[in-house]
């Protein structure tokens, strides 16, 4: 700005003499400043665009008129230094920011110029005296106009640049989103084709008469049925993920008995557990559990998911479910959020290596694909569970089992009514443990 104003002064031949002349002129034109400001802003109706900018009504206009008078007063100050230039240079930036077009300012400056010329004519009738004053005034007005235009230009370039950056960023994000969408689709397509291969393949073998042995045929039909069930699970999971990602999964907020959830969910995995000789332990049996605020169906879905995972990935030992008051504070805003209860599902199974503990909550991630291939599973269960738990106001996580073996997956869910003084549940060491037996 400093060099710019120096260049302008040189270009226009602005001298110390001009500065002195303007300083003399200042007091003589002071009384015209209010009228000048009136005329300046009387131009607004001719610029429909300006109406969009000056939305502050009369109060705003009268503030602007005062600013304009100060600005005009500055023209006669005689000090045309860095600070002077900076102040005037900022005007363009401010205008660009509020969307005031440059053409409005240029034409308004034209009005100021002709108005000052009229004033000059009135105040200094002698031509010999008036001409040098008019010359000096013209030069300083030119400097101001140039400063403003330059700042408009720079602000516009700056705006364009940042707009460009924004667009590039948005473009990159779109491309990334598109890429992960493509990957998701490719993955779904892949996952759906695998069970379809068995369903179509085995039924066609039977239909083509390539399986004459009735016992073998029955086994193939069992394979078809299992694959179709797997396919159904996939379809349901994909629909859930789709709804979650579209933000269209709406959950009920009911008062749900945690006891009832446990009692209705455990039997669903009891048969699988029994088949694998695992004990399924309800560590909360016989303990009064609190009422939580949740979507009953979805809460059961989360629990069932964690329990089936535990049973699936455990070859010997047990799967234990327990509930306890959540002791860890929930982030910084913990004070405002309702107390939570923590539900844990612990197994003595193959475990999840620490580096994969975050990834298992991602879509289609399977810690050990070869295991999952054999055991079935969509790779979506934990991703869905995480979203569901979070939608219900809790969190979910995974850690080593208590004695360093197996896996412990926990999640929290808000209590229905919260009275801080009241301990939500008290499960003592001696709490009765109950092994859930498969009802066969």
């Amino acid at each position: 700005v400093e060099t710019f104003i120096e260049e302008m002064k040189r270009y226009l031949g602005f001298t110390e003499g001009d500065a002195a002349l303007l300083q003399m002129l200042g007091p003589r034109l002071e009384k015209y400043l209010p009228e000048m400001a009136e005329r300046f802003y009387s131009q607004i109706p001719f610029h429909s665009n300006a109406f969009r900018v000056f939305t502050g009504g009369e109060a705003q206009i009268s503030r602007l008129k005062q600013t304009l008078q100060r600005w005009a007063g500055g023209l006669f100050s005689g000090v045309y230094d860095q600070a002077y230039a900076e102040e005037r240079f900022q005007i363009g930036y401010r205008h660009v920011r509020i969307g005031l077009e440059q053409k409005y300012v240029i034409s308004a400056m034209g009005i100021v110029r002709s108005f000052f010329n009229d004033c000059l004519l009135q105040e200094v009738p002698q031509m010999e005296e008036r001409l040098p004053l008019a010359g000096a005034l013209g030069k300083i007005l030119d400097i101001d106009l140039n400063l403003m235009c330059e700042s408009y230009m720079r602000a516009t370039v700056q705006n364009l640049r940042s707009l460009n950056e924004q667009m590039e960023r948005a473009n990159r994000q779109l491309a990334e989103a598109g890429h992960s969408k493509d990957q998701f689709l490719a993955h779904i397509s892949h996952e759906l084709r695998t069970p379809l291969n068995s369903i179509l393949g085995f039924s066609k073998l039977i239909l083509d008469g390539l399986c004459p042995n009735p016992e073998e045929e029955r086994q193939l039909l069992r394979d078809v049925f299992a694959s179709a069930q797997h396919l159904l699970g996939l379809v349901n999971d994909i629909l859930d993920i789709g709804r979650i990602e579209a933000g269209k999964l709406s959950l009920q907020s009911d008062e749900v008995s945690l006891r009832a959830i446990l009692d209705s969910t455990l039997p669903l995995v009891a048969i699988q557990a029994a088949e694998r000789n695992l004990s399924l332990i309800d560590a909360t049996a016989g303990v009064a559990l609190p009422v939580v605020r949740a979507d009953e169906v979805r809460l059961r879905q989360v629990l069932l998911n964690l329990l089936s995972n535990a049973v699936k990935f455990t070859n010997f030992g047990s799967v234990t479910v327990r509930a306890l008051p959540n002791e860890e504070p929930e982030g910084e805003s913990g004070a405002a959020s309702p107390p939570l209860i923590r539900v844990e599902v612990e197994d003595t199974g193959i475990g999840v290596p620490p580096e994969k503990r975050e990834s298992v909550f991602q879509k289609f991630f399977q810690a050990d694909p070869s295991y999952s291939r054999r055991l079935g599973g969509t790779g979506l269960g934990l991703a869905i569970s995480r979203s569901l738990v979070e939608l219900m106001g809790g969190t979910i996580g995974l850690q080593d089992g208590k004695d360093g073996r197996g896996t412990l997956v926990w999640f929290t869910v808000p209590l229905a009514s919260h009275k801080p003084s009241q301990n939500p549940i008290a499960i003592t060491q001696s709490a009765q443990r109950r092994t859930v037996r498969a009802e066969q």
Partner: protein
Amino acid sequence: MTSPAGTKPATPYSILIVEDHPLVAKFYRMALERAGGFNCLVTESVAEMLPAVEAGRVHLAILDVSLSGTEWEGRNIDGLELAHLLRAHSPAKLPILLATAHAMSGDRERLLTASGADDYLEKPIYDARYLVEKVLRLLTGNASARQAGNPSPSDPNRASF
């Protein structure tokens, strides 16, 4: 159709099946054995398949692309890498059929180029006779596979497990 349902032409060709999904592998085996009369070696283990390939006892390999249990030199390899490995160890050019559930546009060219495989089948593959035809066509190296279904007795690759 190559052969009437239920009959088994005396085809001594041996097919290697590498597929990590047990039910899909089971289907390939049943289809190839029953509709084509082929011998099948179903394995995910490189240690198990390599000697058979080296000895010329494998006439064609059907490879899945995404493999979860196939390792070579201490790391997991996929069907594309396995294709190159098998080719490198095969005494004669081994026909390779990729069978994959990767079926998005562009996958076919990408996978064929990356693996050097001869052909590509998109899952679901469920018609046993179609699979047999495809395999025969690759084995005999021409389009008249149906007539050339059985190799001549002098075929050097003639062998079975």
